[in-house]
């Protein structure tokens, strides 16, 4: 009797166009353009492989984003669990048929793209949890019965990703999941307790880490421990950023990257290159663009009626924040090097695909923001 009907929303096309968040689109285009320039610079100012590929991927995935934005939010809701299951199946596929690079097995060869399912899992967890908490009464949230399920749903993909091994992505998946549990209103004491538990079990956790992960963490605390080995990346990255100064060394003049002192400069260390060439000013502007992006996503959540949309948007905003924060803190030497790309900026198809997919769901929330979704 208390069932709420899905509001039969006969939005006209004009209505849909009106409710698009154009500022959000503008922000995506802005960050996308900056990323093209940055990747062009990583190739020493030559228009070649990475730049070309990045432009192609950006245009393809941006178009995909625009198209998927018009998918009803209720459709996303209905298929949320399916999304999660597909993600999980792909992760298991990687376990058996994945292709390896530099000691890690993370990709599935799809011929046109090497898909990294762990990147898709980042979004899948958010949408899955948003649906899960959408239907749960606030009074039930604190019960163990409803707590144990999401924890299991979270542990499975995290475990699979750690096996690849990919500590960074695993932490980011866990982070986004925990964020939604937090948003749903789980009592704060659980977070405090589990935080303390983690701290206590830290020595044990470290003992099961892979040697390279351990070395990265130890190196983080003292980069000079091995300045030409594991500490090299952190030291060179800090030198690059620091020597950029207020205005930067100028576009295409980042000597640190140009002389090839920077490793992985087109993926995880793209911010380093950008910061070296555009300085403090450029970095702050880029940071502001990301803050604006997160703000717009939160804003969509605020104007949405359904809990699903709210939870999803807030969760996704937090996820974006986590990606940006972990990446930048990492290249600034504030966090260990764990391998986390900077959203949109970093070269990499799967990461870009998952971000664009996530953004299209946000946009769908915006376009259909008056849509009510039945609890059952």
């Amino acid at each position, binding site marked *: 009797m*208390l069932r709420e009907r899905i509001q039969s929303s006969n939005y006209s096309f004009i209505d849909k166009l009106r409710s698009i968040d154009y500022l959000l689109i503008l922000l995506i285009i802005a960050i996308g353009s900056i990323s093209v320039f940055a990747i062009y610079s990583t190739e020493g100012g030559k228009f070649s492989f990475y730049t070309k590929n990045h432009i192609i991927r950006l245009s393809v995935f941006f178009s995909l984003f625009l198209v998927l934005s018009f998918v009803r939010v209720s459709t996303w809701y209905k298929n949320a669990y399916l999304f999660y299951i597909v993600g999980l199946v792909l992760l298991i596929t990687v376990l058996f048929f994945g292709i390896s690079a530099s000691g890690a097995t993370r990709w599935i060869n799809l011929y046109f793209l090497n898909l990294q399912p762990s990147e898709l899992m980042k979004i899948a967890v958010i949408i899955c949890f948003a649906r899960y908490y959408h239907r749960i*009464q*606030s*009074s039930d949230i604190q019960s163990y019965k409803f707590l144990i399920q999401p924890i299991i749903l979270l542990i499975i993909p995290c475990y699979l990703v750690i096996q690849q091994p990919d500590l960074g992505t695993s932490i980011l998946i866990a982070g986004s999941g925990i*964020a939604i549990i*937090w*948003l*749903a*209103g789980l009592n704060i004491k659980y977070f405090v307790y589990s935080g303390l538990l983690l701290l206590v079990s830290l020595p044990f956790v470290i003992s099961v880490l892979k040697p390279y992960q351990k070395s990265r963490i130890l190196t983080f605390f003292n980069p000079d421990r091995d300045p030409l080995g594991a500490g090299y990346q952190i030291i*060179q990255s*800090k*030198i*690059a*950023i*620091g*020597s*950029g*100064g*207020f205005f930067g060394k100028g576009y295409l003049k980042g*000597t*640190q990257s140009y*002389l090839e*002192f920077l490793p992985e400069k087109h993926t995880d260390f793209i911010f380093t290159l950008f*910061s070296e060439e555009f*300085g*403090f000013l450029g*970095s*702050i502007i880029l*940071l502001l663009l990301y*803050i604006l992006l*997160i703000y717009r996503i*939160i804003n969509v*959540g*605020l104007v949405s009626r359904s*809990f699903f949309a*709210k*939870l999803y948007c*807030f969760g996704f905003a*937090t996820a974006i*924040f986590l990606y940006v*924060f972990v990446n*930048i*803190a990492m290249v*600034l030497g*504030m966090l260990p090097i764990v391998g986390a790309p900077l959203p949109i900026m970093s070269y990499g198809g799967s990461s870009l695909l998952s971000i664009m997919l996530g953004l299209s769901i946000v946009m769908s929330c915006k376009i259909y923001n008056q849509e009510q979704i039945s609890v059952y």
Partner: protein
Amino acid sequence: MLNRGRNIEKGRVITRRMFILAAAKILLFAGISSRLYNLQISDREKYEILSDKNRIREWKTPPQRGIIVDNFNKVLASNDRVFQLHLILDEINDFDVTIFKIKNIIGLDQFQIKKLYKKKERLKPWDTLVVSDNLTWEQFSKINLYLHELEGAKPVLSTSRFYPYANDLAHIVGYVGDASPKDLEKPEIKENFVPGLKVGKYGIENSQEKMLIGNYGIKRYEVNASGKRISQIDYIKERQGNKVNLTIDIEIQKYAQELLKGKAGSICAMDIYTGEVVTMASSPTYDPNKFTHGINQKDWQEIKNNPLKPLINKSIAGLYSPGSTFKPLVALAALEYGILDPNKTIRCKGHKHPYELYGVKYHCWKKEGHGYMKLRNAIKQSCDIYFYEMARLLGVDKLSIIAKRYGLGTNVLGDLYNDEKNGLVPDTKWKRRALEQSWYLGETVINGIGQGYIQTTPLQLCLMTAQIANGGYKIKPHIIKDESINYKDVINKIKLDQSNFPLHEKNYLDDIKVEFYQRMYHKKSNINFVLDAMFGSTNEQYGTSYKSRYDDPKYQFAGKTGTSQVRRITDLDRELDLDTDQIEYKKRDHALYVAFAPYKDPRYAISVIIEHGGSGSKAAAPLASKLIKRIIDRHKLREQFNNGNTSLA
């Protein structure tokens, strides 16, 4: 209604929690910003210095190439001082202006300038562009005079390959040039390469790259933010390549080239015991020095278009029918297999009554015929009729076993020269496999006089002669001094062996592999018979090379002439019976001669081939005679030098 209230409560919780999260995000972003502020503004100077200090750059310095010397340690390939002009690219503001100025000073043409721009395209911005690797002294001093106007220009004193004997050794030593992408795939070059380094392109330079190339040095410089070198901090010195010691005697080589001047052909000589190649001349030749800095178009066209083909190393890459020089081996084979009694008499009746087989006529070279011949005379006077019959009796397969055993049909110097040919010793199996035809007896018959399918290189003929002359022992021919061979031992071993006892193992005449310095003959008397017949050919009246003989036993040699047809002789030709110089050059026969000397206690074997030279006795034997004298004159010196060396080792 209750539900609605709960929902409102749930919405509030979510929003409240979101705001708490947002606050945390702002806090963390503030943390990042302050870290950025710290790095980029407070500590900027520190990181700037670090960034500068960081950029230590390495320059590789090219190693000097190892030298190549002859048997007497005379330098055949050295490193000469050259004047070069380099441009340090990152010290140049306007490349076009600099190039324009340089063009006016040293006089570059449009083609060279285009090439420089192309070269620059491939370089990194801090690399060095070599504008010219071989300036004249005038150009070099002019550059030095205007140096203050040329930013980034660096006059450099460097070394480059120099071949003091130029044309005389081109085919043996080879030459160097710029490394091609294919060269760079070779590990020995890949490991030691420095831009601008010359690498071996042909001959010893090419095959001994590993020895010659050396190791590059490393100079480490500290460079500042704009890429300028501030100071040198480290210098690991380059190591020159190793010396390569050849067995060639440059004096004899020079003389051999001189004898061949104006002709196309080859002269090879080797020690019949040690297998050392003393000379390996090929004519016409070219100047390898021209290739070092890239040969110019005119010189290249001249070499390429020369109809006598200077680029072909005729001693090892020229293939010729051995002609009558093959006869001693045919006789040896027939004797070894016991096919015929050397006293068997065959009558050579001249062109009017040629040898006939299945209706095909086979002529002797001598129009009027040799008359009644026994084997020794048939070798001495080179009677074709006798050999037709002998080859028919012997059969091609047995002949090919002996021919291969004595050094024909496989290349002589292994992989030292990438163009060395294997030649061809035909047999019935080969023909069936390669041509898918069965063997005709007529082919055996002409094979008996060294015509037909058989193909040999001059060096193979030299080796064949050497291995008969040393009494029938297998030797190891080589052109690079082999430290693992004790020459004294080898000579003694062969000289003292010379066993008279026939070998009774029945497979001995089968196609078996013989080890180095082991006997290859069945009966000593057969070898001696052939050697004696060759003596007759040179030193007795009616012998084909009687005119080139020496009576002084010191120089007295024994040999065998050969004339190799380059086309089929028709009845018309026989009728006309033209002199050599009346025939068109391309249609003239090749003249061949093989010999060993001195006859008593022989030590050297020699082969001479003059392309289209006419008859062996007129064109080839006189050259061999002259060279033999020179070789024997220098023998004592060589012996002393080599023994001195061995005792040192």
